[in-house]
């Protein structure tokens, strides 16, 4: 094996991956120069994940070669990739939360001894940290670190393991913009210094523009473009990703706000840790308006959603819908036409092993108090909704977990937004979706608002909040810290309240 300490160059040549008759990756060649920061762009299902999984040995490519430092290599499993110094950082953390950073680093090694000499290890770790351009606290449990620090630790872990080619799979999706800039800034500097070669999967043009040297775009399993970032405009890259389709403009806002639909009055509940309180003094949402609730993850959004869906009981105060007390039972939700779009719909809004048709029927299967399932009706409805909301599936009988993230979210939307809606409660609807999927989802939410629904949008994406909302509120440490019409909302001021400096 060649020198592990230096950043390698990596190239794939005509990489092809077939699953049965479906070609997920069609002869994709991509060259990542030594010490470069290469971005991999593409819509959901374009083949980005498949490509990197082939490179890391999680899949055995049907066809094609791969070279490291211009030498042909055979990667049959992730261990081979590791031996060649290739590492991967995932969208979600793979650290053990209850262990410290130091412990996480030591157990990640393949040659961890049966009895660990901690004094020696700690010295080694400190020398290692001192040689790195950025560091994280070594002796605190990982769960107490901020998301940005965790992601830095993930990257440090790969470097500690001696991997100098890193695949970053949407590394900033759980970070705030400033955290993202810091982490990627460090990575960028290390590539410039020749210590690291990076291939980053992303949806965010801003990050590509700010940090990447070159970019490759995939569409439907094919490479549709590659080049230096400096030579390409955002529109060029968008056009490559989307193909013929025009970049759709957001749906316009129309109609007036009406009566108050949802109102929280001094609603209090215990938070997840059981030690603190969520306390919403006043929050009103009127028909025909979207109220955006901004906030940094973990400030009570999850608990508020649970209060609104009846999973977390109130200590005091009240939640009212259309003037009457609301406890989120099935009959109340049906009577008041309340709909929910919880975040991560596969985890929170779907029965993953049941079919798409069954999932589309979750809300309506027992309408008019029937005892026997209307199986024909469920199937017909499913076919109509699949067409109407453009859900890409093998068919209504396919289990919903086989669908891509965007399509699961479309299915959840199709189910919740069919028929009249009085109140829609949404949480991070576009988390992890690419922009054409996100566009459709945001348009559907706006459409519901324009038709007169009251919408509460809980989101960690400030851009999304500013785009969709009529009014913006900020949640911080379980309280509403600030509220303003969107016209007067200044991102900087909002950020101030989000960070808790009221």
């Amino acid at each position: 094996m060649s020198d592990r300490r230096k950043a390698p160059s990596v190239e794939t040549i005509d990489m092809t991956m077939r699953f049965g008759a479906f070609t997920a990756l069609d002869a994709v060649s991509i060259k990542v120069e030594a010490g470069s920061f290469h971005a991999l762009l593409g819509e959901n299902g374009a083949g980005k994940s498949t490509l990197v999984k082939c490179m890391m040995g999680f899949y055995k490519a049907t066809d094609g070669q791969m070279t490291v430092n211009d030498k042909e290599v055979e990667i049959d499993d992730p261990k081979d990739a590791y031996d060649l110094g290739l590492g991967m950082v995932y969208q979600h953390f793979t650290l053990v939360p209850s262990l410290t950073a130091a412990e996480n680093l030591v157990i990640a090694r393949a040659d961890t001894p049966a009895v660990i000499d901690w004094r020696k290890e700690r010295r080694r770790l400190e020398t290692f940290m001192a040689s790195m351009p950025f560091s994280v606290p070594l002796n605190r449990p990982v769960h107490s670190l901020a998301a940005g620090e965790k992601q830095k630790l993930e990257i440090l872990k790969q470097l500690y393991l001696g991997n100098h080619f890193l695949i970053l799979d949407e590394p900033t999706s759980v970070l705030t913009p400033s955290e993202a800039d810091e982490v990627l800034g460090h990575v960028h500097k290390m590539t410039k210094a020749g210590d690291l070669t990076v291939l980053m999967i992303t949806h965010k043009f801003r990050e590509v523009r700010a940090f990447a040297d070159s970019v490759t775009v995939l569409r439907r399993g094919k490479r549709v473009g590659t080049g230096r970032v400096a030579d390409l405009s955002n529109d060029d890259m968008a056009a490559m990703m989307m193909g013929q389709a025009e970049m759709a403009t957001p749906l316009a806002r129309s109609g007036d706000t009406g009566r108050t639909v949802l109102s929280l009055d001094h609603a209090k509940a215990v938070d997840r840790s059981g030690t603190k309180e969520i306390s919403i003094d006043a929050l009103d949402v009127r028909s025909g308006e979207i109220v955006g609730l901004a906030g940094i993850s973990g400030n009570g959004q999850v608990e508020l959603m649970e209060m609104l869906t009846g999973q977390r009981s109130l200590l005091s105060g009240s939640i009212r819908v259309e003037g009457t007390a609301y406890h989120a039972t099935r009959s109340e939700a049906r009577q008041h036409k309340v709909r929910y779009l919880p975040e991560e719909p596969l985890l929170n809004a779907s029965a993953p092993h049941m079919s798409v048709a069954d999932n589309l029927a979750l809300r309506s299967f027992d309408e008019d108090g029937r005892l026997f399932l209307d199986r024909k009706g469920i199937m017909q409805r499913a076919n109509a909704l699949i067409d109407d909301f453009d859900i890409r599936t093998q068919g209504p009988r396919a289990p919903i977990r086989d669908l891509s993230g965007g399509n699961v979210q479309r299915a959840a939307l199709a189910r919740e937004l069919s028929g009249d809606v009085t109140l829609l409660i949404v949480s991070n609807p576009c988390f992890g979706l690419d922009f054409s999927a996100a566009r459709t989802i945001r348009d559907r939410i706006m459409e519901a608002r324009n038709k007169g629904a009251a919408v509460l949008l809980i989101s960690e994406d400030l851009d999304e909040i500013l785009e969709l909302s009529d009014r913006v509120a900020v949640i911080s440490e379980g309280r509403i810290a600030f509220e303003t019409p969107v016209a007067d909302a200044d991102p900087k001021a909002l950020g101030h309240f989000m960070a808790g400096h009221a």
Partner: protein
Amino acid sequence: MTNISQNEAAASGRPPALPSWVIARIEALAIPVFALIAGAALFSLFLMTQGKSPQEFFALVWRAAFSSAFSWKNTLSHVSPLLMAALCVAIPARLGLMVIGGEGAIILGGLAAAVVGASCGSIPAFFGFAAMVVAAFVVGGVWIGTVGALRVKRGVNETISSLLMAYIATAIFNQLVESVFRDPASLNKPATMPIPDALRVTDLPFLSTHWGVPVGIVICIACYFLLERTTIGFAARVTGDNIRAAQIQGLPVSRLVIGFTGLAGGLAGLGGFFEVSAIYGNANDSLISGVGNTGILVAFLARHNPLAIIPVALLLGGFEASSGLVQRRMDLPDATILVFEGCIFILVLLSETLYGRSDSLIRKILFAGRSK
């Protein structure tokens, strides 16, 4: 759409793709059959280490369980409680709960039926039977329903609590049968007062088995319809697949869990009723037979599908029925059948990892003749 891609695939020499749900259906049948055969193979190895012939063993099982009217009677006598014991595992499993203490509901249900039956000699038989059935169902239902309630109200792991409650049930059973409910005439083997003849479940006309078997089969079919074709069953399946989604949809999760575990326990209690009323004539410790545990194997082999429980219970009932003959002819201990069942169970659990992975193998087998 599917046709086009299949033609394309055939032209290129690759086996055509099948939709994932078709694969899933094939797997649901093929993998348990494979586990059964592989379990038998593993057990054969065990027999050979004992210096016994596997051929002789399987021939004996066939003879003892399925070859004649007499052996069928023997097999069917084991089937009735197995059906109910298996439902007691399969129904909670569809709600995502692993209840393994059905034995407790069987013996307490049987005890309740025997005690009520013995005191109902003077009323018309119809009411007597009704009282016994209700007593068995309610006692069994409360027993396993408690397991469900502990789960949803207090977060107690249902596998552990149902197992421990089965031990408690055995202790209560022994205590009651040896004290307040003991028939003074039962000297060597403590038992409850005999159930009057009018309240004994009889054999079916022309068939050499009691009513417990057809009733059990009808209940299996009814449970299938309840789970697959009714809105209540749909809500239960959603709860089992993703309890958070069910809660957000406002489904009455607690009531569903308690209701269905109660139903499961009630059916197991009914199994106990048939045992005491058709076989023993009173409640004695023969009722503590381990059938609840064999029922776990039946439910797993049937993939918790109530319809599949029927053939699987017939097969396993046959194995159980052959234990005596195997013991006498091959000079093997009584527990040999348990070793056999254990081998199958291990392979069933191992085969769980095959689901979703046999896609290309299934296509190769199905289209083996075509791809030339």
